[in-house]
């Protein structure tokens, strides 16, 4: 009887662990979406597909490539300060350490003579099956992104031609 209770508790603990792991994915994202400052980024997307997770577009931003920073290597963390220029937000500076003001945190994926490619964790946007081509073919794609005080970013909305993306 005692063994059965222990087994039942073990089973419950495993299910609880799985729920906790799912929460570990979504809680930081929800926190960023809820507390982050909203910025609008200009993009240029391409459209691949992933088995089991559906269609998604890869988004590249104007802030994904920056020049004039020779002190960075591939794999380095990078903090990119942002400033509003017109409608969208662009690079103000980049540094190795956390700056003051609004900044977004990324990882250097390519570095050649001070020219850096950076990923911010907001490069994938999942779309309903078969609708990726709409974003791919659009001339003007902007992304509304929430950026929290630690520089973590999460996609809030994709705007195609200035309007929210609705396939």
């Amino acid at each position: 009887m005692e063994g059965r209770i222990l087994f039942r508790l073990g089973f419950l603990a495993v299910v609880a662990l799985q729920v906790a792991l799912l929460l570990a994915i979504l809680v930081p994202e929800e926190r960023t979406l809820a507390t982050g400052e909203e910025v609008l980024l200009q993009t240029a997307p391409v459209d691949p597909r992933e088995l089991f997770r559906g269609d998604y577009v890869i988004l590249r931003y104007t802030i994904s490539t920056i020049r004039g920073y020779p002190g960075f290597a591939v794999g380095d963390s990078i903090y990119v300060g942002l400033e509003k220029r017109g409608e969208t937000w662009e690079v103000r500076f980049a540094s190795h350490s956390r700056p003051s003001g609004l900044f977004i945190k990324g990882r250097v994926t390519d570095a050649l003579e001070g020219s850096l490619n950076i990923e911010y964790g907001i490069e994938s946007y999942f779309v309903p099956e078969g609708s990726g081509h709409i974003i791919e073919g659009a001339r003007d794609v902007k992304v509304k992104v929430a950026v929290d005080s630690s520089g973590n970013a999460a996609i809030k909305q994709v705007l195609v031609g200035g309007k929210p993306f609705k396939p």
Partner: protein
Amino acid sequence: MSEANIPDEPASEQFLVRLEPEVERWQRERLIGARQATAILARYGLRPPAAVRAWRVGRLASIVAILGAILVGVGIILLIASNRQEFDLPRGLKVGLIMGTVVFLYAVGYVLRYELRLPTVGGAITFLGAISYGAAVFLVGQIYNVQPNEPRLLLYWFVGVIPLAYLARSSAILALSALVAAAGLGMQAAVWMEDGGSSQVSAIRILALYGILGPLYYALAHVHAGLPPLRDLHRPLQVIGLVTTFAALCGLGFTNLFDLFDLGDEPIPDLLGRLVLVYSLLASATVASFVAALYLWRRSLASLPYEAAAGLALLGLAFATAYLPIKEPEPYIVLYNVLLLAALLGTVAVGVARDRETYVNIGLAFFAILVLIRYFDWASGLLDRSVVFLGTGALVLAGAALLENYRRRLLRQMRSG
């Protein structure tokens, strides 16, 4: 552990299938009575014939139920992955539905298996729960646009299901865990290598990683088989271990791979990084597992020291491939092919000696694959190919002749003794 406690090797399925009619025949011929028949069958975990038949039908039902569970699981994944507008629900509701499905499946699996005593269907639903949990991890990632090449998602899947495999004593969930871990390690290694700027050599290094992981699974299978409470769970690790090892060896024996990715001038940026830590941990775990297996099976499994030696040889070679600059790849290619051929012949030999059909099947399947891919890969001209195959074939035939000679000597000894 005393000698008496050294575990017997689990009886092969072929043996068990043969044992039942044999025991029936012995009973008919009055060589043994009903009590002895029951005792002999019980010795191998079998019950009298009618019960054995019921067990077989139950096993078939279990396999069919697991296949059904896989199909339903893939269906659920694809349905939600399609991300259709019709299911465009608020984010919170979507997440709630996904988590609810997982918890519901586990609850149904538990009730069916442990409360209503329907182990087959209950086990299959629990397995479906484990697949659905993995789907849930990726779908929650999808909802929040988490990067698709994020290895952390596979890690969460593995960490979530591995305790369940042991708690529910489920071979299917253990196999799933082992595959998820293998995929996650490969993906993580690829990401780290990209970070290190060495994507050029990642194909070789990832294959080398699997050259360490395969022997680890295989050694763990022997440890599981040697510990009575875990014995039922050894088979998936054994099969996945063998397949992973042979697949890695097949890949690393390609001449083109080393031609494409010249490791000679490539810097080794991960030498002191996270990747070398992973390689070292896996290699240490493999060595420790082989040592534990040798201890558990001491003297009762004659071939295990040779299997361990082959596993450790591959481990060393994989380590060298991953971390030494390779200016002359030819010795590596020859060594990998020789090791693969020896391992395949050894596996078939072990299979025949231990009456293990799985070993023979896997060994022969990879032998066929090896012959096929080397035919196209190894030698450019027909003459070269013929020399390679004639040479290898002559060696294998010489081995067969030696075996035949040994068999005759054994027979002579038996007749004279």
